[in-house]
């Protein structure tokens, strides 16, 4: 069974400009499985936050019954779901007489069941599945040549940038983390090979012993702490799922 905690906070850059945070997350936990999504709306467009919220919610809902131990079929289902959600977002954009690009957001997602699963990813941010022993599977960010350029679900060539990473069957004690790029500088280790253990281990010990409301608040307080804001001025989202 998965226990999920998450928090999204507005980065100092948006806060100073009076703008709302552009990140969003959603998840669905079933008896056997987990669907989790984090999206980071582009700061350079008008409706990035709405795009991120729409994609996260719609995709989590659409994938909530998707479980398949066959990798190809699972990836095909996810591919279709993204295409469908993207089309619905395009309809929303058209109804407001806006272009789809105005709703640009990245996508970091996970479908996990008892037999395994996969990460699916467009753009920056990180996804990590890490065992209690520290073995990790990662989906790394994809940027343009420079770190301030990335790819979005709304891009015309989104299929060229959709990446899948297969996941092993979860073991008791493992954690899956999805995060936007504002969280990664302190949550991921310097070698980019897993979580930064002095960061994740105390969090894991705390969250495993607490309730969802308290855990979510604690996670939010952490992401809003002066030290976290000093490290990154960007919006920050962290979704953690513990397999108990």
């Amino acid at each position, binding site marked *: 069974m998965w226990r999920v905690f998450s928090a999204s906070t507005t980065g100092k850059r948006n806060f100073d400009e009076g703008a709302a945070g552009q990140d969003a997350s959603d998840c669905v936990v079933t008896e056997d499985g987990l669907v989790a999504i984090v999206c980071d709306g582009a700061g*350079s467009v008008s409706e990035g936050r709405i795009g991120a919220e729409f994609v996260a919610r719609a995709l989590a809902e659409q994938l909530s019954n998707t479980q398949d131990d066959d990798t190809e079929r699972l990836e095909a289902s996810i591919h279709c779901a993204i295409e469908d959600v993207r089309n619905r977002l395009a309809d929303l954009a058209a109804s407001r007489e806006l272009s789809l690009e105005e709703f640009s957001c990245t996508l970091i997602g996970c479908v996990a069941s008892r037999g395994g699963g996969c990460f699916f990813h467009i753009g920056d941010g990180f996804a990590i599945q890490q065992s209690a022993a520290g073995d990790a599977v990662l989906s790394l960010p994809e940027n343009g040549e420079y770190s301030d*350029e990335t790819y979005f679900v709304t891009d015309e060539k989104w299929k060229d940038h959709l990446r899948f990473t297969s996941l092993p069957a979860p073991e008791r004690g493992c954690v899956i983390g999805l995060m936007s790029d504002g969280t990664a500088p302190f949550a991921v280790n310097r070698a980019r090979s897993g979580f930064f253990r002095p960061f994740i281990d105390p969090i894991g010990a705390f969250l495993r012993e607490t309730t969802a409301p308290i855990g979510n608040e604690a996670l939010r307080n952490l992401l809003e702490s002066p030290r976290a804001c000093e490290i990154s001025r960007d919006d920050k989202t962290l979704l953690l799922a513990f397999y108990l």
Partner: protein
Amino acid sequence: MSTVIPDVALIDNSDERAPLVLVLDCSGSMQEENKIQLLNEGLKALAVDLKADSIAARCGRVLVISFGGDANVEVIGDWTDAMDFTPPELLAGGLTPLGAAMRCALDEVESQKTQMRTAGVSYKRPIIMLLSDGEPTDEWRQVAAECKTAETAHKVNIMAIGIGDKANKETLGQFSNKGALSLSGLKFKELFIWLSRSIRAVSRAPAGGTVQLNPVDSWAQLST
């Protein structure tokens, strides 16, 4: 009551770098008006100001290329993190092989980018700052065109700055799509403080955002 998770280490593990190449005129004319000494003092101010900011000190990556002497282009030391940057003591003398120096700068930028990519280190668009008080004494047109092409392709950001009345601003302007700026008086220190603050801004730039640099009026002579 706010809930705090105890004992969480919050350390910046990101390796994002902001490369900077300084291409500095050390020809004989830089001895006049104490320019070379003022340039050296400006470099010291740059080092101090970069190190005073924890993010710029960690993210800034600096290389100094001097040109002068007997058609000599010298890469002074290796690329260094801003926190380890020790300003060189430059000496003036000889010719102005500016074209060869800019060729060297373009090559160094590409080489450094390759190294960083191989190491999985992400980076911002590199900045090349060219400072000269004269005009090239070598072939420069071909490399100037390549500089503009590299800028157009977003490979590098080039700032060309003329020092004093004898700087050929028209020629220097051929190395950047933005043209050339002129240093007001000999405000080297103000220029390098501004540059340090620009590296600070670039180091903090979020994904997908554009960087708003400070105005240049602390050191630039505006056209009349």
